[in-house]
């Protein structure tokens, strides 16, 4: 979040509420859950770290909290470093995989039942994302993010199908069926 806020300040100094609406526009429906106070907490932290400074803006006496935030040279440096970083979120499938292995080994539960439950959850998320993506009024930039979410959920479902195939063939003694 800190890096994102810094990068959004790189174009020009801005009020907190401007940053917030820019973020929400870029996130589309996924931005709706964004906490209103989050941006201000982040800005305060960035200020303490010396990455931004702020000044009270003039000319708007009727509204409270008119601070304009500006990147410091350190902040600019940090944005450059962030952009150059190669980083990609890893889907963590190991835990669920191990849950299936443990369930089958100790006969705690039928792995296929666990797969079914997981599929319901992934389908539910896919439904939300897919329905949002069908909205024709969606901003194409925000739509791109949704497309990524949909693609990843589809990949998860495909993997769950593979899990189901394997565990449905496994007999309860833990040996592969037909082996």
């Amino acid at each position, binding site marked *: 979040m800190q890096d994102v806020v810094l990068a959004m300040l790189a174009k020009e100094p801005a009020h907190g509420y401007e940053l917030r609406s820019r973020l929400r526009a870029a996130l589309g*429906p996924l931005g709706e*859950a964004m906490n209103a106070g989050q941006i201000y907490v982040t800005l305060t932290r960035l200020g303490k770290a010396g990455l931004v400074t702020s000044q009270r803006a003039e000319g708007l006496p009727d509204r409270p909290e008119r601070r304009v935030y500006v990147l410091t040279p350190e902040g600019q440096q940090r944005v450059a470093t962030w952009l150059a970083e190669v980083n990609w979120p890893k*889907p963590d499938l190991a835990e669920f995989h191990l849950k299936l292995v443990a369930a089958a080994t100790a006969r705690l539960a039928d792995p296929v039942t666990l797969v079914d439950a997981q*599929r319901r959850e992934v*389908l*539910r998320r896919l439904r939300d994302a*897919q*329905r949002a993506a*069908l909205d024709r009024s969606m901003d194409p930039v925000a739509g791109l993010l949704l497309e990524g979410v949909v693609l990843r959920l589809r990949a998860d479902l495909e993997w769950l199908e593979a899990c189901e*195939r394997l565990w449905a063939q496994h007999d309860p003694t833990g040996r592969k069926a037909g082996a």
Partner: protein
Amino acid sequence: MTGSTVLQARGLSMLYGGERALVRAVDEVDLNVPAGQSLAVMGPSGCGKSTLLYLLGGLQRPTDGEVWLADRRIDTMSERALARLRRDSLGFVFQSFHLMDELTAVENVELAALLAGQSPGRARKRAMYLLDRVGLADRARHLPSALSGGQRQRVAIARALSNEPLVVLADEPTGNLDSAATLDVLRLFEELRTAGQTLVVVTHDPRIAAVADRVIAMRDGAFVDDVASAATGTLYDGRR
């Protein structure tokens, strides 16, 4: 919005092969589809979902069990009665569109109504209305060969709606479509769902299942999971 049962199966089974290599394509399936429900049956290739759809639509006869459409039992009907019922009360959408290549889009859509004895004027008017509804009013005079895959499938959906069917049955309707065309078809299904059209779609495309009211998972000819979609979504709760 859902109401009384429109489509029902009881103990539905379809067996292939002899005693030594018996395949239970559909294995004692019970199903109730209420009016207005959009139902997706999902499962891997070969799980029996297409066979199930053909049995429900009277395109194949089951080895065992019953199929009821509204209050009529259809699996024991004569071929002739069944053909009439399919023409009057069911709409079909297939993966490979099954349009008549030598007929224009509007002619494809109005064909069933003409065969049912409707006047050409009325049939044409309704066909144009349906093409407009699927966003293809300006393609009405095109032959299928001049349309993209997604457009052809939308014509096929318009055709499926021409007789105001009790149920639309669709077999992998996005199976041959690219991503953008899939989105168009999904939008259309979402509109039909909202309009209260009863829909049964068999698919392995989770995007279709994702916009259905109810999702059934099928494996080895039987239902293994049956989920009504939760009411409202929370898109961004919890991290993946």
